[in-house]
């Protein structure tokens, strides 16, 4: 049975802050920072936006593109590492916001930035087994970057949602391949407001080892080479990492560039690579072969081999596109950034 993407939706908040603006606040050399991360600006949610509100927006568009009734959805899984509630699910809010039926499997998933892609894999299994007809997988994050620390330059805000099913596919997910291990590259302890990087672990032992492990494993099992793919999309904590991992795997820049969004909105964590995929779906021709490899700290990757169908082009304009949302922006200064992200703590609430 062929399973895959029936519809997709994305959400990027309207506000942006430039890397230069943050660097000026902290006395950093903006050119050096931009050269390190290749991030020009990042998306910032307004004071009333959070991973729940963005998940609703993205999921509504995914349902619109899928062209299915909410009552046909049998599961909704939300991948995030920045839940507004430590205990109280995003997925149950989605049930009522999207008017899904009560008989829905629903859960929030956490594996740093990887859980949104695990939601897709799990839904594929439920669809293949016949337990559900359609499911919604969401990746949504508004994660934390401590003011004055380098993470603040790249931590963005955004969400993406995919309706997974076996009929009317815009893209078939032909194969998946996981690669995971206990690697302490990045974590946030319970109750801690900001995450911490394991010194020296971020690059080689974490991001590169897991993405290359998953990508190579998938290609070896299928007997495929980088030449067999039209697009390659990787998790993007900054714009340097996905370009470098592509080089290491043998993908030319032109196959990677269309799926990079981090340079304009920052790292959207659980939405990151999946938002890149949404952007690629907006331009890909039917029959395009796409490699997507997600990554979550802790650490693990999921690789996907996806092939688009003839139904894809007709669904693009049914909802807001990533391209439109990248253009729809208002710049804010650092003081508004602190206010909108609620980083200024008020003594009296």
């Amino acid at each position: 049975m062929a399973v895959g993407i029936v519809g997709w939706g994305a959400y990027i908040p309207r506000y942006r802050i430039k890397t230069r603006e943050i660097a000026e606040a902290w006395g950093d050399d903006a050119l050096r920072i931009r050269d390190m991360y290749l991030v020009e600006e990042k998306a910032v949610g307004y004071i009333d936006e959070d991973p729940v509100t963005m998940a609703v927006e993205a999921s509504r568009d995914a349902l619109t593109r899928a062209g299915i009734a909410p009552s046909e959805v049998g599961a909704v899984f939300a991948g995030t590492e920045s839940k507004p509630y430590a205990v109280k699910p995003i997925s149950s809010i989605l049930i009522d916001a999207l008017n899904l039926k009560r008989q829905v499997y629903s859960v929030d998933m956490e594996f740093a930035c990887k859980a949104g892609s695990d939601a897709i894999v799990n839904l594929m299994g439920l669809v293949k087994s016949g337990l559900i007809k359609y499911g919604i997988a969401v990746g949504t994050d508004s994660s934390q970057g401590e003011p004055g620390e380098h993470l603040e330059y790249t931590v963005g805000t955004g969400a993406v949602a995919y309706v997974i099913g076996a009929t009317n596919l815009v893209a078939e997910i032909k194969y998946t391949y996981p690669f995971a291990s206990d690697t302490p590259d990045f974590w946030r302890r319970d109750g801690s407001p900001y995450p911490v990087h394991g010194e020296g672990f971020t690059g080689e032992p974490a991001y590169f080892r897991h993405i290359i492990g998953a990508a190579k494993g998938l290609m070896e099992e299928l007997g495929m080479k980088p030449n067999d793919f039209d697009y390659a999309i990787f998790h993007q904590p900054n714009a340097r990492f996905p370009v470098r991992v592509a080089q290491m795997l043998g993908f030319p820049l032109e196959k990677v560039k269309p799926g990079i969004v981090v340079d304009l909105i920052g790292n959207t964590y659980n939405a990151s690579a999946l938002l890149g995929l949404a952007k690629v779906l907006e331009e890909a021709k039917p029959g395009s072969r796409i490699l997507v490899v997600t990554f979550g700290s802790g650490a693990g990757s999921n690789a996907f081999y996806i092939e688009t169908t003839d139904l894809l082009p007709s669904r693009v304009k049914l909802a807001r596109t990533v391209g439109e949302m990248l253009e729809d922006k208002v710049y804010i200064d650092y003081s508004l950034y602190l206010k909108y992200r609620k980083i200024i703590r008020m003594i009296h609430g």
Partner: protein
Amino acid sequence: MVDQNLSVPKYWRKIPQYYRLTAVKCRKCDRVYFPPRAVCECGSREFDEYELPRRGKLIEYTVLRSVTSDFEKQRPLAFGIADLGGVRVFGQLVDCPNPDKLSEGAEVEVVFRRVKEDSDYGIIYYGFKLRPVKGCW
């Protein structure tokens, strides 16, 4: 003790309206009511649920610079009445950093946002707001 400023049951009962703009449509005369009513002007008590469209036009708006303490940090607040498929809905206008740029007749879309929260530990109240499609800055 966590502050519970707005009754949780009161919020929970209105989730279909807060989240999805669920109105009712009279089975006899097709009149639509938001918020829902029990009896139609035609006398019928038979309704079907009806979700209002998520795009419409701004009919009227106002900008508040003196606001209640819950919203002090969001000043100025803009509120408007939008025509959503012939039904007039009152709501907060968002993503509008310069409310002076608002104009009657502007296209607005319904968005899902945080409305209020009971301190740092209580419930977060979600609901609909209105956003000018072309922005206002």
